[in-house]
């Protein structure tokens, strides 16, 4: 089985084009094994 998560979060392409500290970033890579409760991104 498969779970697909879709969610809104602050994005890097702010109008000024600069990346602000509040942008959402994934902290996983393709193929990573994850477990319940581990951070996918911040």
């Amino acid at each position, binding site marked *: 089985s498969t779970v697909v998560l879709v*969610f809104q979060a602050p994005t890097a392409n702010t109008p000024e084009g600069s990346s602000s500290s509040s942008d959402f970033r994934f902290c996983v890579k393709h193929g990573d094994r994850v477990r319940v409760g581990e951070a996918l991104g911040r």
Partner: protein
Amino acid sequence: GSGDSKGNAFLLPGATMATILMLGALHARRLYEGKKIEEKREKGIELEFHPDVKASFLGILPLRSISRAWGSLTSLEIPVWMRPYVYKAWSRAFHSNLKEAALPLEEYASLQDFFVRSLKEGCRPIDPDPRCLVSPVDGTVVRFGELKGSRGMIEQVKGHSYSVSALLGNNSLLPMVPEGKDQSEEEDAVGENNDKSWLRVSLASPKLRESISASPMKGLYYCVIYLRPGEYHRIHSPADWNALVRRHFAGRLFPVNERATRTIRNLYVENERVVLEGVWKEGFMALAAVGATNIGSIELFIEPELRTNKPKKKLFPTEPAEERVYDPEGHGLKLEKGKEVGVFNMG
């Protein structure tokens, strides 16, 4: 008479031999293919979408009935003395971690009970950082990223993508504004279009509306996680959020393993699935639990009466999604980060 029996005596071993040789050839071919794929992967070559005969063959099989038959088989009670042997064999075959099971193996009356087992306290600590989103399941990250443009396509595998609105349903709260339409037009459409009453309801509260609306400061992200048969199969909440609506799509039950993603078109949009949609502090959130042949059932602890993979009334036409709005006042059901939300089950 003796000639006939002599003929049969020759025929039977010959047919058996031919069958064994054919199965051997198929297995050898499968091993060879698997080796080729492994070599490509080691070279970092990403495999492309490539439908094949097996995928077409799966398309004509009664996979839902097969899944329900599998469910009936795995729900049979196993004699107590036999249970440890069966579950140890299962965990050896599918690399399950028996040490984490909450109960002694003898306590799981059937393979299904064992499959939906919960874990010992503390086995899955929840990341306390309030800014982070946590994994709702155990599994392997197969795709993740930011959705660009208003069409919102997720790559199933290199060379083939599916649309998020097809995955979540046409009525989705997804903050996508179609090309050439601004948000206000979109809301007017909702106002006129009565069969979207729940959408009008859930966007009634301005607070909710403003928190979901598309904004240049917010992006739409996605993450696709594949669960292998031996994994822990309960689904937890990825953040503190409010579930507003549940959508059940009575779809196909193709396998969803790596090979299926490379050979079956629109796999996650075709398959039986349950979608929860709502809002979290950063805006829109949706969680789609997609079933597979051996795991046709998706149960929600927040809605115990929901049943999936039921016998279909009509053979082929795909039924529209069956929807339920949680708490029509528009606040939805509160789901705390890390709390159990549902579980995948066999059959």
